């Protein structure tokens, strides 16, 4: 795993009264333990990876508490884990990145919510929406509505988040319904503090095992029980949930002197709203607002009485609801009409329908809202602020003269996947560019410059499946790229098995780097065996053949495993796979261990050997500045952060020359590319002998008689 959580594990053990300091998602983890969970599962992905990562690393402590931790192979298996709470009074939580994870989990979630739960069941969803999002922009809210899963959207401060997790379990049990705790990216990563409570060991756990439940048809999501369960959800569980939410005051009402108006806001947006009100001069630094605010820590279900009593007597209410469609607004509108409360309801008419709600957008919306309903209010400060921001941006644009080049994420220095795309770019010159169906994972960085490859991305492990209907219509065979993470998440069944069943003719390129790397190098079923991961930092992934064996077991005939750094061989293999007369699925397993893991092993070893005075060979690549002509074709085949340009030292030349800067790990791609693409003779490999032996020194002295080095 990329990150070690030693200090964080200690903070998970804090007892009553101690102050927990740390990240939001780790506060959630602590809250789960405080709530006495029996099991935790999930699938990693920003922004919730740390929850599972820390629990996996804290296995010993989890054992002590009797908590079963499972790193699931996908979100469907994580959601299905919650099935334990259907027939047993155990609390459990699972986590994943949403919307994508919820999509994958949807089938199990439908059945889970239909059957209902006995023990509290929580889904910690990392809502990857807005700035920094890496997935399709959709709302998890839709799933809550269609499956009747309750959804919490806590105010983003640690005490509130922790309270909502704890209350979430109670709500789940009070209404026999699984609960989603929805946390936005920044809320997961927010650093703050809260007063901890002691962890609780569950009554039923891995330490205290119980007897299997008896047969009860009403707990099966199977007809005819399903018909009764649907009614039960609406007639019993929903009212129970509303009762609990109202009684426990999960939603928070903040008073203000402008009682004729009000703002209803999703809890997660509360702090941004406060900033907007502050900018308008309507709130102070402590969140004391002149406009009354109703913060919905529970966004589904709403409690109709809460809404009507809040709105009654007001001229107008503004709802701040991020994303689309405007589910909450529709809900509130229905409630107000049915109860004939006459307050005007504003929402998406004044605010943007799509996209993240920034303070700037909120100031604009609030100005319109208050301008209409509190016309005597002086909102000049907000107006001036908006104007000045606009003015500064315009001035900056004028001074900069042109938009700045973007800086998207990129393959790491020494990433074993970069050479594959270099090989593909070289191979394309002869074979022409095929249809490339992309996938989720680090390899998706090949969609950025300098490779700019890919025709579609349809989800994690979906690349081969998404090429199924392309191949039969194209003159060239399509190429599907997939990581080993995607392969095990979904690709093996959705892609490989389906292609075999349908006798598809495509090429699948599997990146066998050994881990789910993009999310923090979590382990896979095909991760290299521990004893193969030696301190030399050499790639260890060849020591595991689970992917190749699985392919062979399914009946794939054409499978070739190629080390990614053999660029010329990779290029040949790609060309062959794309052009061979042989039909059927062809799989290239591109083998090369994730360099983050390799470096993690090698760095301390190198440091130890250097300190101990042992001989170490340090490798760095370089470019001879006097033979480089500055055409940068090497960069167009690499994009490595350490292969860059510098001013041309030759006073007669103008274009910058290529150069290799510090940070180069000597992966060798520069040399491989220079050969495979017949680039230029400027690249050299420098091997520095650190702590040289007597022999090294003697040879060097003799050599110096001939070579002026």
């Amino acid at each position: 795993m990329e990150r070690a959580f030693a200090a964080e594990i200690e903070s998970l053990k804090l007892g009553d009264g101690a102050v927990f300091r740390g990240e939001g998602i780790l506060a959630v983890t602590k809250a789960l333990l405080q709530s006495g969970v029996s099991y935790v599962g999930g699938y990693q992905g920003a922004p919730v990876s740390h929850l599972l990562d820390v629990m996996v690393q804290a296995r010993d402590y989890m054992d002590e508490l009797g908590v079963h931790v499972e790193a699931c192979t996908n979100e469907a298996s994580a959601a299905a884990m919650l099935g334990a709470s259907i027939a047993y009074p155990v609390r459990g939580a699972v986590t994943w990145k949403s919307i994508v994870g919820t999509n994958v989990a949807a089938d199990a979630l439908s059945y889970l919510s239909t059957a209902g739960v006995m023990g509290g069941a929580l889904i910690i969803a990392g809502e990857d929406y807005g700035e920094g999002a890496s997935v399709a922009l959709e709302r998890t809210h839709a799933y809550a509505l269609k499956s009747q899963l309750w959804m919490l959207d806590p105010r983003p401060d640690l005490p509130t988040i922790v309270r909502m997790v704890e209350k979430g379990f109670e709500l789940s049990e009070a209404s026999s319904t699984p609960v989603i705790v929805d946390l936005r990216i920044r809320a997961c990563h927010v650093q703050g503090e809260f007063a901890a409570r002691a962890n609780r060991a569950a009554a039923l756990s891995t330490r205290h095992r119980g007897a299997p439940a008896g047969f009860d048809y009403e707990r099966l999501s199977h007809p005819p029980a399903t018909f009764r369960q649907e009614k039960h959800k609406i007639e019993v569980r929903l009212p129970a949930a509303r009762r609990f939410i109202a009684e426990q005051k999960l939603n928070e009402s903040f008073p203000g002197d402008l009682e004729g108006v009000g703002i209803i806001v999703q809890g997660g947006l509360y702090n941004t709203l406060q900033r907007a009100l502050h900018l308008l001069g309507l709130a102070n630094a402590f969140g004391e607002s002149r406009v009354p605010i109703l913060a919905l820590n529970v966004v589904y279900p709403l409690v109709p009485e809460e809404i009507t009593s809040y709105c009654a007597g007001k001229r107008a209410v503004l709802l701040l609801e991020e994303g689309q469609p405007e589910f909450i607004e529709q809900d509130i509108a229905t409630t107000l009409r049915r109860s004939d409360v006459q307050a005007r309801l504003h929402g998406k008419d004044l605010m943007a329908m799509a996209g993240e709600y920034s303070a700037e957008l909120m100031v604009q919306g609030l100005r319109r809202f208050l301008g209409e309903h509190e016309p005597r209010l002086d909102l000049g400060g907000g107006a001036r602020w908006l104007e000045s921001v606009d003015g500064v941006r315009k001035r900056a644009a004028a001074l900069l003269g042109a938009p700045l080049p973007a800086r998207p994420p990129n393959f790491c220095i020494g990433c074993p996947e970069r050479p594959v795309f270099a090989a593909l770019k070289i191979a394309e010159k002869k074979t022409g560019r095929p249809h490339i169906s992309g996938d989720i994972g680090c390899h998706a960085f090949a969609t950025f410059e300098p490779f700019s490859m890919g025709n579609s991305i349809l989800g994690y492990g979906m690349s081969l499946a998404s090429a199924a209907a392309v191949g039969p219509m194209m003159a060239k065979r399509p190429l599907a790229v997939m990581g080993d993470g995607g392969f095990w998440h979904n690709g093996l069944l959705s892609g490989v098995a389906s292609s075999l069943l349908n006798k598809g003719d495509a090429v699948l390129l599997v990146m066998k780097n050994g881990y789910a790397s993009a999310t923090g190098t979590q382990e896979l079923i095909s991760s290299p065996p521990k004893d193969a991961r030696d301190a030399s930092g050499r790639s260890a992934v060849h020591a595991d053949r689970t992917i190749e064996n699985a392919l062979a077991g399914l009946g794939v005939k054409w499978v070739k495993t190629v080390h990614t750094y053999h660029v010329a061989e990779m290029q040949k293999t790609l060309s062959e796979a794309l052009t061979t007369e042989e039909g059927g699925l062809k799989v290239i397993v591109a083998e090369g261990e994730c360099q983050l893991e390799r470096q993690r092993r090698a760095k301390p070893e190198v440091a130890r050997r250097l300190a101990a005075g042992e001989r170490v060979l340090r490798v760095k690549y370089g470019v001879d500045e006097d033979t480089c002509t500055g055409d940068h074709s090497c960069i167009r085949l690499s994009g490595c952060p350490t292969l860059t340009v510098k001013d041309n030292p030759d006073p007669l030349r103008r274009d910058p020359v290529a150069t290799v800067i510090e940070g180069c790990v000597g992966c060798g791609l520069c040399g491989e590319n220079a050969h495979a693409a017949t680039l230029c003779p400027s690249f050299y490999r420098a091997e520095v002998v650190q702590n040289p032996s007597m022999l090294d020194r003697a040879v060097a002295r003799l050599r110096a008689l001939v070579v002026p080095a």
Partner: protein
Amino acid sequence: MNLPDRSLTVLIAALGGEGGGVMADWLMQAATARGYPAQATSIPGVAQRTGATTYYLEIYPVRRESLGRREPVMSLTPSPGNVDVMVASELLEAGRALQNGYVTPDRTTLIASTHRIYATAEKMQMADGRFPEERVLDAARQLAKHAVLFDMRQLAQQHGTVINAVLFGAMAGAGVLPLPREACEAAIRRSGRGAEASLRGFAAGFEIAAGERAAPAPAARALPPATREIIDLGAARLRDYQGEAYAQLFLARVASMGDVGAELVGETARALALWMSYEDIIRVADLKTRPARFARVRREAGAGDDEPLHVIDHLKPGVEELASLLPPFLGRRLQSWAERNGKLDAYNVGMRVKTSGVFGYLLVRSLAWLKPWRPSSYRYAEEQALIERWLAAVRAAAARHPPLALEIAACAGLLKGYGETHRRGKANFLAILDALVENPATADPAAQAEAIRKARAAALADPEQRALERTLGRPVTWLRTEKTR
């Protein structure tokens, strides 16, 4: 007690792997240790993988115990026009902060390192795609309330630490944090590993920002050489390349331009000197085996004087390289055979030559010893003929319309690279020479010059030549390595 109206806001723009997260932790640590309510958030995600990433902090500069039960509400996202301290670990990222409105004259102290880490889009261009630094610096000075700008990477390297330590020091030294120096240093010390180096970097950043010591002077950009200097540099280069006679040939060619103005003579001489010292296998072998080259590699690889160094060169000579060395009648035959049969890159031999070893050195050096043979080689004959053709066009244009001659002279810049890159560049050059220089569609020299300028820009716009083909309105034919089916 009179409480401040708002929290102090700090936005940090960094690139993955620069320790932006650690710096945010230090700040949090220092603020919390002072008893100030503070909050930090970030958008790491995949941006950690070398992309641009941001960290955002708010600090309410009053001890919590004097607030009673009141707790400041802090935003998780920065808003434009609302940032007190903008920190950028690299110049382009500072530019991005400016572009997004995070730096405003009424309140923002901008602390940015002036070094550049080029984005892929900048460095992959065929010519110079770098964003002009001066514009970012100028905008920074104009838009910030106070700007602390110096090369912090260099300083970090000097102190054996990471840039975040220097940035943190600069932040503290600029006097914008409600945290005394000791509190910041204590936070660094608490982080343990590497603390001593970090503290040195911190001190350097602090003292420069506080004006207690001078910032490292930016490396002076060499001025472009003047015409006289270009001619001298060119003659010296060619003397080194092939000897005195060759240098004299260069001088004679420059003299043949006549009195057409310094700029045109200078530009033509510059292009001519580069072209005449074309990179053939002899030249490459010569440059690769010089003492100065080995010294440079040693420097770039960071090898100590007592550390033995092995230098391995990646060479892949093929048919073209062989043909270029043969006498013209043989070389021409081999070359045209290879072109006809798509064999130009068919027989390249990939070699990893240990140039620092005795055998490898002698192998490469022996190629350099072929220098006296060069004037009798096929490539020499080819290059000289094309040089004369180009030079004649420049001279003819100079008489009509000097700006046109400048454009033609600049076309020689398209000839660069090796192997396929060189072939493509040459094809572009020949296409422009043929279509726009020697057979122009217009009699107006200004229009002709403009057409050439556009075509040249198009040739450099994309490596697939599509832009040039669109500009010329016809395909650019060049020798592909294999026959297309």
